[in-house]
């Protein structure tokens, strides 16, 4: 049970924090159409986060999705480092999205067959959304890669810088091993080969260099150890409910 809660929190937190990063970008995209489109992706992720955190709250008992979102401390979050990274520029945002979209596609496809019925149900609904997210972010990666000299350089820089955060996606901690044994979720390491193949394919299409594999020696977000970025994000996200507990509007 503890492992299931931890795992559900991780899925929910990763969707929540990525959605918050996208929300921060609202009104700042290069043009109006893209602004609406990327914000829609953020709203999809927020919906997934709500479903997952509601389930985590039910398993935990005596709490709600809102409380988990607004009243937990940084070390209690379980999101992966990749979604915590800040919005450096448009290329960076799209590269981060693309890396997560491929991962979510593979993961939710497997989770649709989870032995946990609620997780399977949430995943079946999410897979339709993340499939579209991937189509969008993948097109942008190719477009920026094949675009101007500047767009090519920026998307290449983004992948070079974000690459070190991708190994966490395929790292299995004790929670992963336990939920895998119970048939709730696949081992992350089992998704790596397919993820790499798909990422490589798109990067080649985009005429981008595939960054070298880096082993990230820091602690991982899924273990509750976060990047320096998360604390600032939470300070902003949780500010209002902490200042005015249980405010209604």
């Amino acid at each position, binding site marked *: 049970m503890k492992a299931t809660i931890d795992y559900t929190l991780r899925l929910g937190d990763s969707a929540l924090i990525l959605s918050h990063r996208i929300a921060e970008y609202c009104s700042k995209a*290069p*043009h109006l159409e*893209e602004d609406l*489109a990327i914000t829609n992706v953020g709203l999809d992720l927020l919906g997934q986060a709500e479903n997952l955190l509601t389930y985590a709250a039910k398993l935990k008992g005596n709490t709600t999705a809102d409380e988990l979102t607004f009243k937990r401390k940084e070390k209690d979050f379980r999101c992966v480092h990749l979604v915590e990274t800040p919005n450096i520029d448009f290329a960076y945002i799209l590269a981060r999205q693309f890396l997560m979209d491929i991962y979510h596609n593979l993961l939710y496809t497997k989770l649709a067959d989870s032995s946990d019925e609620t997780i399977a149900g949430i995943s079946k609904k999410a897979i339709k959304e993340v499939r579209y997210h991937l189509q969008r972010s993948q*097109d942008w990666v190719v*477009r920026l890669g094949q675009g101007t000299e500047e767009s090519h350089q920026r998307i290449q820089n983004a992948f070079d810088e974000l690459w070190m955060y991708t190994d966490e996606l395929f790292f299995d901690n004790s929670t992963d091993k336990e939920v895998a044994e119970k048939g709730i979720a696949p081992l992350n390491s089992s998704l790596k080969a397919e993820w790499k193949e798909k990422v490589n394919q798109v990067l080649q299409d985009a005429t981008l260099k595939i960054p070298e594999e880096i082993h990230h020696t820091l602690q991982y977000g899924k273990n509750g150890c976060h990047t320096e970025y998360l604390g600032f994000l939470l300070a902003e996200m949780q500010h209002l409910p902490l200042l005015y507990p249980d405010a209604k509007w």
Partner: protein
Amino acid sequence: MGKDNQGVLWEVFIQPKAGGTYKHVGSLHAYDKEMAMQSARDLYTRRSEGNGIWLVKGEDIVSSQSIDDEAFFDPANDKIYRHPTFYKMPDGAKHI
């Protein structure tokens, strides 16, 4: 970004129900048809407005010019005999 690099204008038509007619709902800017289709989906169908999308490049649409209004449309005003309003319709006839 400058004002001139948002791509070309596309007109968007949505089909509310399968088999129904496509209706013009608005326009958008995009660099190519794939991007135009994705934007159309995000801008115009996210609240279940329909399940079919047509896109036409604005420049491919031929439209009448307002300078032609008099010659094109005014002559219709005084020719009521072009409307089938002089027939007596039997009671109960529908769809006229």
